Each structure stands twice: as C-alpha cells, then as structure tokens.
C-alpha cells in the first residue's frame, strides 16, 4: 500500500450509500475524505481543501458532470477519476477529453476503486530521483524538465496534467523507439490498463494539441495499429 498518510480525496457524489462506502474504505486506509453533493460546492472545496485526487460522479442531479470535470481541470492539475453508471465508449472518451485521468463504471468493487486510486496517484506524483533518465531533455524548441515536471516550448511554459506529463516523459526518454499501446498504457496508467486504448489515443491527441505547432514538425509519430514514438533527432 502506498503511503497515503497525507493524501486527501474530494468525493463529489450524491448517493449516500456510495459516499458512505468510499469514505469508510478510504479513511480506514488513512485517506482524508471531503465530500460534496453538488458541483458548486465541489469547486469551492477544490480551492479550500487542495485535494490530491477527486472522485467525480458524472450523474449529479443539478450539474453536468463533464462540465464540472472540465472546470476542475481548468483550475487544477489534480488527479480526477470519474465514476458513472453509464458505460459507453463515447462517455469514456468524452470524460478523458475534458481532463479526467481515469474512468470507472458502477457498480464497482472496492478493490477496483482502490487499485485505480493508487495507480492514478502514482502516476501523478513526481518521478523518483533514481530515474536513470537525464534531468532535462530538449527536443526541438521543447524543454522537458523531468525533475521539476515542467515543460516549456520556445521559452513559454506549457501546462500539462500529471498524466500528460507522464506520457510525455515515457515517450521522450525512449526517443526514436517504437512504444506499443500496451506498453505505454502499462507504464503510464498501470497494470490492468493495457487494453484501454481510448486512454492512449486521447492523451496523445492532447499532447499533440499542446506541444506540436500546426504545420510544423510532428513531435509524436503514429505507427498505425502498433504504437507511438517520439520524433528522433
């Protein structure tokens, strides 16, 4: 179990049973939990409580879950796991597009909940110091500061979410090498995620949108049906 002594979770959910479930299971494992049953309150709590992870129910009675997710993402790089009773692929892609790091469907088991929380937290924590990669990688006009988890392009800082950064780091430290979908999913999201190809597609698209100049040199190259690679020198 990762050290969760100071990990705080914001739970945005209106079903009391689920709130009870999550709160009980998280507190017994040492998490702080803060609960909000409506969207506006949730945004306030985001400011005041600075949670490490947000568990967001898409089907809130008074709010549009996707919109709320987008607003949270706008304000913070906090890890977001969305929970939904609907399970369609379209919903999943939409959720990822608006900034969610992970997507969980109801009904879920507690094991699954905990596993996803752990994976997401790990991904969004800064890398350990013994990482053999060089501390700074420069590609074209991009400067990737691995230790500081910062990226700048042509001198301008680019804001990336932890997941985006994790994916970029994986690609950049294996520059020129073809990385399969499965490999990327396992490395960035964790075990059990190897088949979630929508995740990888959405996040590659997000990286490209943020890092590649329109009409300029592509940064991430697609190998159809196989995987991706960072453009070689």
């Amino acid at each position: 179990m990762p050290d969760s002594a100071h990990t705080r979770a914001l739970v945005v959910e209106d079903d009391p049973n689920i709130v009870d479930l999550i709160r009980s299971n998280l507190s017994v494992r040492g998490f702080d939990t803060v609960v909000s049953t409506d969207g506006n309150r949730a945004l306030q709590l985001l400011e005041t409580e600075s949670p490490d992870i947000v568990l967001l129910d898409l089907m809130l009675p008074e709010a549009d879950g996707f919109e709320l997710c987008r607003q949270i993402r706008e304000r913070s790089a906090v890890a977001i796991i969305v929970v939904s009773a609907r399970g369609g692929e379209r919903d999943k892609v939409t959720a990822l597009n608006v900034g969610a790091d992970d997507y969980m469907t109801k009904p879920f088991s507690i094991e699954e909940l905990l596993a996803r929380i752990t994976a997401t937290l790990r991904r969004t924590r800064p890398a350990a110091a013994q990482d053999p990669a060089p501390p700074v990688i420069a590609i074209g006009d991009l400067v990737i500061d691995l230790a500081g988890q910062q990226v700048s392009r042509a001198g301008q800082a680019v804001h990336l979410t932890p997941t985006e950064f994790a994916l970029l780091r994986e690609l950049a430290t294996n520059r020129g090498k073809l990385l399969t979908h499965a490999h990327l999913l396992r490395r960035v999201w964790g075990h059990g995620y190897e088949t979630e190809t929508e995740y990888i597609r959405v996040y590659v698209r997000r990286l490209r949108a943020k890092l590649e100049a329109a009409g300029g040199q592509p940064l991430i190259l697609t190998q159809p049906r196989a995987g991706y690679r960072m453009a070689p020198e």
Partner: protein
Amino acid sequence: MQMSAAAVDRFPDSPPLLSVSGLAVRFGALRALDGVDLAVQPGELVALAGENGAGKTTLVRCIAGDIAPASGRILLSGKPVLADPLAVAHQGVAVVWQDLALCDNLDVASNLLLGRENRRHLLSDTRFHATAAALLGELGIPLHDTTRGARALSGGQRQLLAVARAMARKPSLLLLDEPSASLGVQASRRVEELINALRGQGTAILLACHDIDQMFRLADRIVVLRHGRVVADVEPGAVHPDDVVALLSGQQVDSSARRQLTRLHGLVDRLVSADPSSSLSLILSALGAALGNERLCIHLLQDDALVCAASLGVPPALLSAWSRLPPGPAGGPVGLAADSEEPVVQDTAQADGAWAAFGDLARAAKVASSWSVPVMGPGGLAGVITMFRAITGAPPRDQLDLVTLYAGYAASAIERDRLLDEVTARNRVLETIREMLETLAGPIPVAEGIVVALQSLRRGLQADEVVLLSQADRGPPRCRAFAGPAGPHRGAGAASPALLGIASQVIAGTRGDGVARQLRARGGERFLAVTFAAPAGPAALLASWPGGQLTEDATALIEDAAHSLRLALEREEAGLAHQEAAALRRSQELQRGFLSRLSHELRTPLTAIRGYASSLMQPDVTWDGDSQRRFLARIAAESARLGRLVDDLLDFSAIESGILRLQQDWCDIPLVVEAAIACLPPATAEAVEAEFDPGLPVVWADHDRLEQVFVNLLDNALGHNPPGTRVNIGAKAHGPAGVTITVADDGSGMPDELAAAPFEPMRRRRSRTAGAGLGLSIARGIVHAHGGLLELDRPAVGTRFRLWLPVELPGKTGSDAAEHALLSRNGRNRGQPAPARTAIPAADSGRPAVARNEVISGA
C-alpha cells in the same frame, strides 16, 4: 429642287425639263411671286392651283418669257430662260393664254399655222388648208372647216384651236393658263384628252387652273400657290380635293371629307367606351349616317355560317330570311362576299347575279342594288357589311371606300369582343386555378382544402357536380369531397349515386395518367373524368354537365385541377408520414431516455450492495461492529429496493406487452383501500383519510393488483408533496355497473410538464424514494386491464386522480378465482378510446413495437 417621291419614281434619272428657283416678281409694292421653286419633268403634268391673284398667271408669264422676274432663275433643259417670248418659243415652250390670243380676223388655218407658215403654204391655199386640216386631224380636234373665221367659232372651238396652235409646234413644255375656264363639259373633256395625249408624248405640261376636279383628273402633281408662294406640292392621290381647297384659300373648309373625319373620330371615341355588345350597332348607325343611307346590316362569321349580328332599317322579311346565310352563292351577295373576300357590288338586284336566290325578297323589300363588303379581321374573314339601296347603280368609289373603312372598324370591334370573351373565359379559368392553388397550398388542413377547391372548380367548369374519389390499398373507393348545386361536402354528401357509380368505374378502369376523358351517359349528360396516381392509390376527379354543354377550356382546367389535387394529396400523405416519423422518433427518444434512466436506477442499489459486500470481504481491514452492522443493513435495504425495481419493471413490461395476468375475485373496495393504507409507514398513513359510500358494490378484480394501484397513487400523493399534505380517498357507486374512486391531495399540484403526460414513465430528478418512475404507469395499466379508466384532474389546489372500475366485464365473470383476463393491445372497452402508448421493448423481442396514436371510433 424638291420632287415628290412618285415623280422620282416615274422620272428616275431625268433632270427636270423646267426648273424654277427663287423666282420673285414685284409689281410696285405688290409681290406677285415671292420665292417660287418649281420643277417639271418631261411627260409630267403639274397643275398650278391658286385663287385669283395668287400668282399663277404671273408665273406662267415668267416662264413664257413675257415678264422679267425681279430675282430668281428659270432654266429650260438647263438653259436659262430670258424675258424674250420669241426666244422662249424657240426653246420649245408653247403657251395657251387665258384669253387665247387668237386672231379673230383670221381663219382657223391661219391661226393654226400662225408664225409657222412656209413658202409653200403661202403659195397654195389648198396646201395651206390641207396642212391645217391634217394637223387638226392629227390632234383629233373636230374642226373640219379650216376656212372658218376664228370669230365664228364657239368658245370651245376657239379653245381647241388655241391648244392646237400651241401643240402644233410640238413643244417640250406646254403652258396652259385656265384652258377650260369657259368651256362646257364636252369641250372641256376634249381639251383634257388633248392634254393627256400630249403628256403621253413626253411633253411637260404646266397647267394653271382653279378647277379642283380637273386638277385631280389630270395632274401628276398639284402645286398650290397662295400669295405668291408655293404652299404645297402634292400628289392628287395623297390628298383630298377639300384639302387643296383649304390650302388655296387658307381656311378650313368643312367639306364632306372633314365631316366624315369628324364623324369617324366621334365613332372611335364612342366605340372605345361602349359596351362591346353595342359596338356593331354603333358602327352601323355611324356608317349609315356617313353614307346618307339607312339600310345596312352586318353578318358575322360563326362556325361556317354568316349570322346577322346587327341591322339598320332592314325590313323584317328580309332580315328573317337573312338571319343566317351560308357562305358561297347560296348566301346571296353576303355569301359571295364572304367566299371571295372581295366586295360584291350588285348594281341590279333583279338581274341574275348574287341576288338570284333572293329575287322575290329583293322585290318585296324594295332593294334595287346592294353592296356587300367583307370585314377582314386579323384571323381572316370576320364578317360582311351589306348596304341596300332602293335605286340601281354601282356605288361611287369613295362611298365604297368609306364602307371598307367602317368595315375595318367593325373588324376591330368584333376582334375586341372576341378577345374580351376569351379574356373573360380565361380569367374564369385562371381565377379557378388560382383559387384552387391558394386553397390547397394554404394553411388549412388538406381535407378541408380539397372541399373548398372542388367548389372553385365547379364554378370554373360551370359544371353541375364535381367529385373526387380516392382508393387506398385496393379497398373500396372513398369519396374525398363533393361539390354540387346544394353546396360542398366532405365525403359523398348529396352526390348522386349515378355520379358515384361512374366515378367508381372510372377509377377502376382507366389509367391514372392525368388525361381528361369524356364520357356520355344515357340521359345525355356529359362527364369529364381524370384519373391520376395519388400517393395512397389511384384517384379520380369527375365532373358532370347535365345539359351536355362542356366549356371549351374544361379539359385543360380539369387536368390542371387534377394535378393540383394530386399535389395536395401528396402533401397530406407527407404530413401523415411526417407525423408518423415524428411519433416514431419521439417514442425512440423516450425509449432511449427510459432505458438510460432505468440502467442508472438499477445500478445504483447494485453499486451499494457490491461495494458494501466487497468492503466487508477486504482481507487487510477489520471493520468495527457499527460499521459492519451498518454495511449489512444497507445491503439488505438496497437489495430490497432492487427487488422492488425489478418487480415494477416486470409489471410494466407485462402491461406493455398485453400479457398482464390478473387473478380476479369479488373485491370489497374499502378492504382493498385499507390494506393499501396499511402498507404505508404509520406516520404518513395518518395523513390519509378514506370515505366510502354505503352500498358500494363489490367489483370483480385482482385484490393484490388493486392494492398495488392504491399504494402507487398514495405513494405519489405523499412522496411528491411537502410534509403535512393531506390525502383523501373516496369511493362511490357510478350507476349500477361501476365504481368511481378518487385519490385527492391538497399539496403543491403537479408540475405542468409532468401533467402533460402523467402516466408516461416519469422523467424526474433523482429522488430518494424513487422507483423507476413507473408507478403511475403501472397503476393505469392495471386499471385498464380491469376494463377501467384512470385519469388525472388538476383542481385549483393539489392533485386528484380519478379511477373508474366496472363492476364486472361482460362475459368474464365467474366464481373461478383463477380466471385471468387477457387484454389485446388495442383493447376497446365500452366505447372508450384506446390509450395512447409509448413503446417499451417487450421482454424478449428485439424490435420496438410502435403504435400510432389514433382515435378509433367506438364500437
């Protein structure tokens, strides 16, 4: 030099023989000639017209060399003419003066040969006279005795002699000053003949005179002098004698020509503003006045016969015989004129000729002669105008011309009338089409529009009855609309069975190609039928005329109408299809929404159950007793909730598929209601008040299901209203065969969007007491399965549901408690409409079943 156009034509390349330019002569202060220009070609006869003192004689004298002009030039064959008569004579100019200038003391021969005598003449008298006589003979002048003294001759003879003398020299230019001023008709004529003969030989002739008629008889050109100036240089053919007179005197002469012109203007004005039907009479009366004759008639060509359209002063006997004439000789002068398209002048009606067939009539009517002039319109012969006279003889040329002129007016009037008729007819047709199109394209529903359109069509066709039939799916033809003398109808209305019968035959028999076909019935009625392909099946449009008189445009109009009706029917069909599509889309949306909500409703308790159970099974955690108990209680509660949801869903599904099973027995309503109330939590049960009529009959029903209905209604009343709401259930008998139960609350009333469709699976915000929102829907399904009715009232305060149950369904009662009632999808119960349904997929079927919202008239 100006030459008239005809002169140019006749003498294209020759230069003028005589050319006068800018001639001016003054006698003291008087300007006898003031800038005169004149040109005469060889062989041309120019008449010089003018009143006394206008300058004619002066001009002649100038040209003859008798006086010298003050200015200007005279050229003869290009050579100037000097004021020397002898020299001028040598240049080939001969003059016949007004006073003739004969030598009275000499005889004819001497006068004739004066100045041209030669030695031989002088030597021999005989030869002298022979020459003279020969000359006179040559000229055709009947002066045989050349020895007569000039003094002894008559005025005419003297004139002739003077002319002969002038002509004897064979001049190239002959000047005549008033040659026949004092002559009688016969002599005048002879002189004119002479002059004409000379002209024919190529002599240029300048004739000064003031006899207008003579001018018009002889001259190629008329030059009018007035106050020493040339005021006109015209051709006789181009001008009226009266106009020349007017020019001469400088005043408007109210000649007969001018009168005629005024009359014509007046006629035109009247015609323009007159009623078309009276224009022919107007023309005839004007013509009669113009001719000074009052017996006229006009025949119009209609369908190969000449029909008398108007007449003036024609005796009745003749009129009736001539009311209708065939073209050709059998039609008398009228028919002949029509046939030949030329005027037929019958000098004598009695003689063999055009009047041959009508000789007696002519006598009786005192018709001695007639003229028939064809009236030519733009499309050929339009009619014939005939004039009758009581005296024999041919009409003067100008009168004939006048009649032809009036005939032209008549042609225009006839054409105008014809065009007006055509326009009126076309207007009627266009108006009809416009009305129909507006009606059918407009906002009113197609079914009504068709009725109005048929009315318009009936007017436009001037038909007796018009009917539109359509046939759908090989069923019987159905009458969509009918318009008849008594007014329009949707449906068959008062259409005669004969008409319907024919229409049905037509729709079955003919091709639906939109072409009109005529049919005739035994009774002499005529029909026009058009069949066309409407979206639902073949359709037929039929119109009937009892008298058998179809209008000319009927065929085109009915075909156009059929086209418009087809478009309207297509629009109707499209509208229906659109509605169906919209209903289907709506139902599919509702389905999607429903399924989505449903999945959510089911997953929520499942999540709790799974979550709590897996929490309890975590190996690495030990839960305290409170938590454990709480988890387990939640598992139990959510399982129960899930169970209820599933039950509701199964009920709903069974109702939708029509397979709801009822276990019926005789039920005591009060007992059922009380049982329902007992299901409620005690606190809320207190808010419910029940009252029952004494003597309430028992009903044949499923006790448990009825209880479910009441529980749902009470749940709805209590769950959606603020706490403290009171609920009242009442039941009373409704006649001997039914029971009415009301469940009323005084709460906040139902929101509008829910009240619009209260029994649909509800789209509601998530509420803690929620089922899948199926409660009311299930309640209604159960009530309908019993043959009853459930309705929502919206009183001023709160909400009220009204339930009606039959005591028993006919044929279904029995004491067998296990009997169940099966209800078909479109169940009809004693005249109640089938409920509108939204489809939910039945349990096993993969396809949604859609029912159209229809009002089915009660059995």
